Protein backbone atom coordinates (compact mmCIF):
# COMPACT_ATOMS: atom_id res chain seq x y z
CA UNK A 1 0.00 0.00 0.00
CA UNK A 2 1.20 3.47 -0.78
CA UNK A 3 0.01 5.17 2.38
CA UNK A 4 2.29 5.58 5.33
CA UNK A 5 5.45 5.64 3.30
CA UNK A 6 7.83 8.55 3.64
CA UNK A 7 8.30 11.40 1.24
CA UNK A 8 10.39 10.48 -1.76
CA UNK A 9 13.30 12.80 -2.25
CA UNK A 10 15.26 13.13 -5.42
CA UNK A 11 18.83 14.27 -5.91
CA UNK A 12 17.84 17.95 -5.72
CA UNK A 13 16.02 17.39 -2.45
CA UNK A 14 12.64 18.03 -4.04
CA UNK A 15 9.81 15.60 -3.52
CA UNK A 16 6.42 15.21 -5.06
CA UNK A 17 3.15 13.98 -3.60
CA UNK A 18 -0.22 12.94 -4.92
CA UNK A 19 -2.91 13.25 -2.29
CA UNK A 20 -6.24 11.49 -2.58
CA UNK A 21 -8.99 10.35 -0.28
CA UNK A 22 -9.34 6.73 0.75
CA UNK A 23 -12.57 6.63 -1.28
CA UNK A 24 -10.79 7.76 -4.46
CA UNK A 25 -7.88 5.43 -3.74
CA UNK A 26 -10.26 2.47 -3.42
CA UNK A 27 -12.22 3.56 -6.49
CA UNK A 28 -9.26 3.45 -8.85
CA UNK A 29 -8.02 0.15 -7.39
CA UNK A 30 -11.46 -1.38 -7.70
CA UNK A 31 -11.64 -0.28 -11.33
CA UNK A 32 -8.54 -2.37 -12.02
CA UNK A 33 -10.13 -5.39 -10.37
CA UNK A 34 -13.29 -4.99 -12.44
CA UNK A 35 -11.50 -4.80 -15.78
CA UNK A 36 -9.02 -7.59 -14.95
CA UNK A 37 -7.44 -9.26 -16.95
CA UNK A 38 -7.56 -6.07 -19.00
CA UNK A 39 -5.99 -2.74 -18.13
CA UNK A 40 -8.32 -0.09 -16.75
CA UNK A 41 -7.69 3.62 -17.19
CA UNK A 42 -9.07 6.87 -15.94
CA UNK A 43 -8.47 10.52 -15.22
CA UNK A 44 -7.73 12.26 -11.92
CA UNK A 45 -9.17 15.74 -11.47
CA UNK A 46 -8.22 18.19 -8.79
CA UNK A 47 -5.80 20.97 -8.04
CA UNK A 48 -2.19 20.96 -9.15
CA UNK A 49 0.69 22.63 -7.40
CA UNK A 50 4.44 22.27 -7.93
CA UNK A 51 4.96 19.52 -5.36
CA UNK A 52 1.42 18.45 -4.56
CA UNK A 53 -1.27 17.15 -6.88
CA UNK A 54 -4.49 16.96 -4.90
CA UNK A 55 -7.21 14.72 -6.33
CA UNK A 56 -10.83 15.77 -5.95
CA UNK A 57 -12.48 13.41 -8.43
CA UNK A 58 -11.73 10.11 -10.15
CA UNK A 59 -13.25 9.69 -13.61
CA UNK A 60 -13.34 6.28 -15.24
CA UNK A 61 -12.49 6.14 -18.91
CA UNK A 62 -12.87 3.42 -21.49
CA UNK A 63 -9.80 1.62 -22.77
CA UNK A 64 -9.86 1.93 -26.55
CA UNK A 65 -7.14 -0.72 -26.94
CA UNK A 66 -9.57 -3.59 -27.21
CA UNK A 67 -7.06 -5.23 -29.56
CA UNK A 68 -4.53 -5.61 -26.74
CA UNK A 69 -6.25 -4.56 -23.53
CA UNK A 70 -4.26 -6.91 -21.30
CA UNK A 71 -1.12 -4.84 -21.74
CA UNK A 72 -2.13 -1.56 -23.38
CA UNK A 73 -4.34 1.38 -22.57
CA UNK A 74 -5.49 4.40 -24.46
CA UNK A 75 -8.15 6.95 -23.65
CA UNK A 76 -10.06 8.29 -26.64
CA UNK A 77 -9.19 11.98 -27.13
CA UNK A 78 -12.86 12.75 -27.61
CA UNK A 79 -13.56 11.36 -24.14
CA UNK A 80 -10.69 13.44 -22.76
CA UNK A 81 -12.09 16.58 -24.34
CA UNK A 82 -15.40 15.89 -22.59
CA UNK A 83 -13.72 15.09 -19.25
CA UNK A 84 -11.61 18.24 -19.46
CA UNK A 85 -14.70 20.32 -20.21
CA UNK A 86 -16.58 18.86 -17.24
CA UNK A 87 -13.55 19.45 -15.03
CA UNK A 88 -13.35 23.07 -16.13
CA UNK A 89 -17.03 23.58 -15.36
CA UNK A 90 -16.46 22.27 -11.82
CA UNK A 91 -13.36 24.39 -11.30
CA UNK A 92 -10.98 21.42 -11.45
CA UNK A 93 -7.99 20.58 -13.62
CA UNK A 94 -6.64 17.30 -14.93
CA UNK A 95 -3.86 16.46 -12.48
CA UNK A 96 -3.18 12.86 -13.41
CA UNK A 97 -4.21 9.54 -14.86
CA UNK A 98 -4.39 6.01 -13.61
CA UNK A 99 -4.17 2.57 -15.14
CA UNK A 100 -3.68 -0.99 -13.99
CA UNK A 101 -1.05 -3.62 -14.66
CA UNK A 102 -2.76 -7.02 -14.71
CA UNK A 103 -0.35 -9.63 -13.30
CA UNK A 104 2.55 -7.20 -13.58
CA UNK A 105 4.32 -4.98 -11.02
CA UNK A 106 3.14 -1.41 -10.33
CA UNK A 107 6.15 0.08 -12.12
CA UNK A 108 6.11 2.20 -15.23
CA UNK A 109 7.20 0.59 -18.47
CA UNK A 110 9.26 2.02 -21.32
CA UNK A 111 6.03 2.33 -23.31
CA UNK A 112 4.33 4.11 -20.41
CA UNK A 113 7.07 6.75 -20.48
CA UNK A 114 7.22 7.02 -24.26
CA UNK A 115 3.48 7.61 -24.44
CA UNK A 116 3.25 9.99 -21.47
CA UNK A 117 3.00 13.63 -22.50
CA UNK A 118 1.35 15.45 -19.60
CA UNK A 119 4.29 17.06 -17.80
CA UNK A 120 3.58 17.77 -14.17
CA UNK A 121 0.81 15.18 -14.04
CA UNK A 122 0.73 12.08 -11.85
CA UNK A 123 0.62 8.65 -13.46
CA UNK A 124 -0.83 6.18 -10.97
CA UNK A 125 -0.32 2.46 -11.57
CA UNK A 126 -1.97 -0.38 -9.64
CA UNK A 127 -0.80 -3.95 -9.97
CA UNK A 128 -3.67 -6.42 -10.09
CA UNK A 129 -2.73 -10.01 -9.43
CA UNK A 130 -5.27 -12.72 -10.24
CA UNK A 131 -8.01 -10.11 -10.07
CA UNK A 132 -6.98 -8.56 -6.74
CA UNK A 133 -5.47 -5.06 -6.52
CA UNK A 134 -2.03 -5.10 -4.90
CA UNK A 135 0.42 -2.18 -4.94
CA UNK A 136 -0.59 1.31 -6.05
CA UNK A 137 2.33 3.56 -7.02
CA UNK A 138 2.49 6.99 -8.58
CA UNK A 139 5.03 8.61 -10.87
CA UNK A 140 5.26 12.30 -11.69
CA UNK A 141 6.12 13.13 -15.29
CA UNK A 142 8.81 15.80 -15.11
CA UNK A 143 10.93 17.66 -17.64
CA UNK A 144 10.64 20.44 -20.14
CA UNK A 145 9.42 18.34 -23.01
CA UNK A 146 9.75 15.17 -25.01
CA UNK A 147 13.55 15.24 -25.06
CA UNK A 148 14.20 15.25 -21.32
CA UNK A 149 11.03 13.86 -19.79
CA UNK A 150 11.26 11.30 -17.04
CA UNK A 151 9.17 9.65 -14.36
CA UNK A 152 9.93 10.54 -10.79
CA UNK A 153 8.71 8.40 -7.87
CA UNK A 154 5.90 10.14 -6.09
CA UNK A 155 4.47 9.66 -2.61
CA UNK A 156 0.87 8.41 -2.64
CA UNK A 157 -0.74 10.11 0.34
CA UNK A 158 -4.12 8.66 1.22
CA UNK A 159 -6.20 10.85 3.51
CA UNK A 160 -9.46 9.98 5.22
CA UNK A 161 -12.46 10.73 3.04
CA UNK A 162 -13.86 13.17 5.58
CA UNK A 163 -10.90 15.51 5.10
CA UNK A 164 -12.36 17.06 1.98
Amino acid at each position, binding site marked *: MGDGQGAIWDADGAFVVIELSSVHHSALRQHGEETYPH*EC*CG*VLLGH*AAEALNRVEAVVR*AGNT*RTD*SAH*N*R*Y*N*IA*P*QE*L*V*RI*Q*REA*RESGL*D*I*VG*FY*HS*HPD*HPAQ*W*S*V*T*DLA*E*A*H*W*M*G*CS*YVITSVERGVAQQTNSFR*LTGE*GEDDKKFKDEEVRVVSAAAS
Partner: protein
Amino acid sequence: MKIHIPTPLRPYADKQATVTVEASTVGQALEALTSTHPELKKHLYSDGGKLRAFVNIYLNDEDIRYLAAKEATPVKESDSLTIIPSIAGGRPSISPRGKRG
Protein backbone atom coordinates in the same frame (compact mmCIF):
# COMPACT_ATOMS: atom_id res chain seq x y z
CA MET B 1 -12.78 32.33 -29.87
CA LYS B 2 -11.48 30.42 -26.90
CA ILE B 3 -8.58 27.98 -26.93
CA HIS B 4 -8.38 25.63 -23.95
CA ILE B 5 -4.85 24.82 -22.85
CA PRO B 6 -4.09 21.52 -21.07
CA THR B 7 -2.28 21.66 -17.72
CA PRO B 8 1.20 20.69 -19.06
CA LEU B 9 1.22 23.50 -21.63
CA ARG B 10 0.02 26.30 -19.37
CA PRO B 11 3.53 27.26 -18.26
CA TYR B 12 4.11 28.27 -21.90
CA ALA B 13 0.87 30.29 -22.08
CA ASP B 14 1.36 32.60 -19.10
CA LYS B 15 -0.27 29.95 -16.86
CA GLN B 16 -3.63 30.52 -18.51
CA ALA B 17 -6.19 27.71 -18.81
CA THR B 18 -7.96 29.49 -21.64
CA VAL B 19 -6.61 31.91 -24.22
CA THR B 20 -8.94 34.08 -26.27
CA VAL B 21 -7.94 34.89 -29.84
CA GLU B 22 -9.52 36.61 -32.82
CA ALA B 23 -9.62 34.38 -35.85
CA SER B 24 -11.81 33.34 -38.73
CA THR B 25 -10.25 29.92 -39.35
CA VAL B 26 -8.74 27.14 -37.22
CA GLY B 27 -5.32 27.88 -38.72
CA GLN B 28 -5.54 31.57 -37.89
CA ALA B 29 -6.54 30.77 -34.33
CA LEU B 30 -3.52 28.51 -33.84
CA GLU B 31 -1.29 31.06 -35.53
CA ALA B 32 -2.58 33.77 -33.17
CA LEU B 33 -2.00 31.49 -30.19
CA THR B 34 1.59 30.65 -31.07
CA SER B 35 2.50 34.19 -32.04
CA THR B 36 1.29 35.46 -28.65
CA HIS B 37 2.91 32.49 -26.87
CA PRO B 38 5.85 31.45 -29.07
CA GLU B 39 7.11 28.89 -26.54
CA LEU B 40 4.05 26.78 -27.26
CA LYS B 41 5.19 26.20 -30.81
CA LYS B 42 7.81 23.56 -30.12
CA HIS B 43 5.42 21.68 -27.85
CA LEU B 44 2.70 21.55 -30.48
CA TYR B 45 4.67 21.16 -33.69
CA SER B 46 7.65 19.07 -34.74
CA ASP B 47 10.70 20.72 -36.35
CA GLY B 48 9.11 20.21 -39.75
CA GLY B 49 6.12 22.29 -38.63
CA LYS B 50 3.72 19.36 -38.45
CA LEU B 51 1.35 18.95 -35.53
CA ARG B 52 2.98 16.41 -33.21
CA ALA B 53 1.40 12.97 -33.47
CA PHE B 54 0.43 12.86 -29.79
CA VAL B 55 -1.17 16.33 -29.81
CA ASN B 56 -4.86 16.35 -30.58
CA ILE B 57 -6.70 19.55 -31.31
CA TYR B 58 -10.46 19.56 -31.24
CA LEU B 59 -12.75 22.15 -32.74
CA ASN B 60 -15.68 21.78 -30.36
CA ASP B 61 -16.12 17.98 -30.53
CA GLU B 62 -14.23 17.28 -33.73
CA ASP B 63 -10.59 16.39 -34.28
CA ILE B 64 -9.20 19.02 -36.66
CA ARG B 65 -7.26 16.27 -38.50
CA TYR B 66 -10.59 14.94 -39.72
CA LEU B 67 -12.22 18.21 -40.69
CA ALA B 68 -12.81 18.35 -44.45
CA ALA B 69 -11.17 21.77 -44.76
CA LYS B 70 -8.57 21.03 -42.02
CA GLU B 71 -7.01 24.25 -40.76
CA ALA B 72 -8.95 26.33 -43.28
CA THR B 73 -12.17 25.42 -41.49
CA PRO B 74 -14.02 28.62 -40.62
CA VAL B 75 -14.66 29.34 -36.94
CA LYS B 76 -17.14 31.50 -35.07
CA GLU B 77 -16.63 33.53 -31.94
CA SER B 78 -18.65 30.94 -29.97
CA ASP B 79 -16.50 27.98 -31.10
CA SER B 80 -13.72 26.64 -28.99
CA LEU B 81 -10.52 24.78 -29.66
CA THR B 82 -9.24 22.26 -27.13
CA ILE B 83 -5.64 21.08 -27.14
CA ILE B 84 -5.38 17.61 -25.68
CA PRO B 85 -2.23 15.48 -25.66
CA SER B 86 -2.89 11.74 -25.82
CA ILE B 87 -3.09 9.42 -22.84
CA ALA B 88 -1.77 5.95 -23.47
CA GLY B 89 0.71 3.39 -22.33
CA GLY B 90 1.38 -0.25 -21.93
CA ARG B 91 4.12 -2.77 -21.72
CA PRO B 92 5.71 -4.82 -24.44
CA SER B 93 4.63 -8.43 -24.62
CA ILE B 94 7.75 -10.21 -23.48
CA SER B 95 8.38 -13.77 -24.45
CA PRO B 96 10.77 -15.63 -22.11
CA ARG B 97 13.30 -16.18 -24.88
CA GLY B 98 12.60 -12.89 -26.60
CA LYS B 99 14.18 -9.51 -26.36
CA ARG B 100 15.16 -8.33 -22.93
CA GLY B 101 12.45 -6.29 -21.29
